[in-house]
């Protein structure tokens, strides 16, 4: 099981903070996860796929083409606003 987390505006778009999913594919790319989560809803696909959204795999920022199949926790982070 892989835990998927959403933060900030993305959490509202998804309507949920986190859920768990089984992914069997290897490699598992960001685009594969988005396709599964969006289920054809273009808004969700666009929001999760935006260039400004960063992917965190097990607490590390990873590139778009990172293989996420071994990751236990994957987070989608919209632009941050600290300070």
């Amino acid at each position, binding site marked *: 099981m892989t835990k998927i*987390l959403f*933060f*900030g*505006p993305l*959490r509202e778009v998804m309507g949920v903070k986190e859920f768990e999913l089984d992914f069997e594919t290897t490699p598992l790319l960001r685009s594969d996860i988005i396709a599964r989560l969006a289920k054809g809803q273009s808004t969700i696909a666009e929001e999760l796929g935006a260039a400004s959204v960063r992917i*965190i795999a097990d*607490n590390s920022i990873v590139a778009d083409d990172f293989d996420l199949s071994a990751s236990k926790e994957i*987070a989608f*982070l*919209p*632009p*941050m*606003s*600290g*300070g």
Partner: protein
Amino acid sequence: MVRVQKEAFDAGAELNAFTQSHTDMGAVVTFSGHVRDHNHAETVSTLELEHYAGFTESEIRKIETEAHNRWSHIRTLIIHRFGTLKPGEPIVMVAVASAHRKAAFDAATFLMDYLKTDAPFWKKETRGDTAHWIEPRETDRIARQNW
């Protein structure tokens, strides 16, 4: 020293404790950020700060480490809150002690510029009956990029 916490903090007490623990350094610069009571001519009622527990702390520690790489003889304190805050409450505090004021001013500015863009927080401000996500500002992106 990095602290990410839900509880309010007393910026003045933090400044005094920080100063007293670095008596070899004559210059201390602080930044403190507070929830504003107005925005776009509307009264602000709350500011919600969402964070990514664990990851947020480790990202802020990276920012702090980078500051120490750039200014080798400074001491630093970063406190950042999450949760639901009211107008006037402290959100963030950065303190830098140094032998000379230039390093203290520069490092404090650096820390704030990086926290704005690279610290994993998301802010939602409630004004009147409506909640608004605070969008990162272009000026913040540029300030971060210029370091």
